[in-house]
């Protein structure tokens, strides 16, 4: 192997022994790069990347907010609608109850009135009857007296005569205004 032979045989510096001046230059170069690239520039790009992430996330957040807002409004509308429905149902129920109450009240009133009218009629009838009885009683007495005097005044000859008298009396009686009914 030519390569290996030359490698071993080559004269010159040992590549594993560092040059002191290269250590110094390397440290210096690294320090400069670290200070400028690391300490000055890297924070800038970190800031920019963070801002970019924030901007993207901000956009997403905004969209999410809008969606949440829409959702909220929808919920609100739904709630209002439900509330209105409930209110309507409540009113209907109330009206129905009120109607029923009014109906019951009216019926009650009507019944009371009817009872009152009937009672009044009864009282009137009773009064009329009493009056009729009283009147009748007087009339009957007077008529009896009249009939008796006619019978006595007329000659009570035969039975046929008597019958005619009675019939005439009754006809007269019927011809009078009706007081007893």
């Amino acid at each position, binding site marked *: 192997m*030519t*390569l290996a032979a*030359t*490698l071993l*045989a*080559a*004269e*010159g*510096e040992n*590549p*594993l*022994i*560092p*040059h*002191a*001046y*290269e*250590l110094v*230059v*390397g*440290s210096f*170069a*690294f320090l*400069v*790069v*670290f200070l*400028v*690239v*690391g*300490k000055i*520039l*890297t*924070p*800038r*790009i*970190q*800031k*920019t*990347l963070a*801002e*970019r992430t924030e*901007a993207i996330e901000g956009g997403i957040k905004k969209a999410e907010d809008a969606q949440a807002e829409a959702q909220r409004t929808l919920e609100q509308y739904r709630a209002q609608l439900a509330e209105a429905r409930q209110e309507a149902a409540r009113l209907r129920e109330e009206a129905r109850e009120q109607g029923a109450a009014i109906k019951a009240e009216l019926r009650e009133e009507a019944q009371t009135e009817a009872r009152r009218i009937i009672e009044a009629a009864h009282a009137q009838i009773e009064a009329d009857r009493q009056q009729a009885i009283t009147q009748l009683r007087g009339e009957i007495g007077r008529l009896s007296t009249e009939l008796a005097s006619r019978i006595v005044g007329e000659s009570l000859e035969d039975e046929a005569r008597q019958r005619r008298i009675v019939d005439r009396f009754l006809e007269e009686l019927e011809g009078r205004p009706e007081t007893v009914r």
Partner: protein
Amino acid sequence: MTPLMLVAEDFTAPGPSIFDFPPLYEGAPSWLTKPVLMAIFGAIVVTALAWSAFANPKLVPRGMQNVGEMGYQFVRDQVARPFLGKDAERWMPLLISLFFLILLWNLFGVIPLIQIPVASHIAFPIVFAVTIYVIKVYLGIKHQGLGGYFKNMMFPPGLPKAIYVLLAPIEFLSNLIIAPFTHAVRLFANMFAGHLILAFFSAVGFWFLFEKPTLLGAGLGVVGAIMTIAMTGFEMFIEFLQAFLFTLLAAMYIGGSLHPDH
């Protein structure tokens, strides 16, 4: 001797000496070599690119910011978050600096005219590995206490005492010496070997096609040229992978010190 070896008689494969660089010009200080220059150049380029991408970042990225964000998110999602969880953001400055600088230094290996992966000089990986090592031990002691750190590392509860005698030295050596060592050496060795292989194939191609073109050697030269192209693509992948792995291990060590119990 086969004919092929006859053809290759004068050819000398490139060795580790290709990593030795003289001072840039006559009379220059001995430390001013090509790798040193490229290390500084790389740091400047990384800083400039990062500046153009991140200096004034927009919510809607364009141009360099797009590229930079891709790199940033790669490190954040593939390295920082899996190993550091909610501490990821806090360690991103360190990890992003590590990753970008190592990646560019590595990619210098295949960029024409530069053609030297900076990390093939072990001093540079050592700088990174030592930095991470110091942070790892500091965080471990800070978050777990001096005794707690070593106790958690070497004597995790739940085992019979006798076993500790056998295992604790292994844990100690593995965590405090071998791990940082391999952390640096893995990056160094990959860049070193990869560059050597690239140099070998391109040297074969150049030698047999241009330097000493012979009928017999031409085939070899063509193979060398094709392999150079193929290996360049492969090297780019390795260079990226090693930058990623180095950063990943750094995050793993830091995460391990922050949350010893996972």
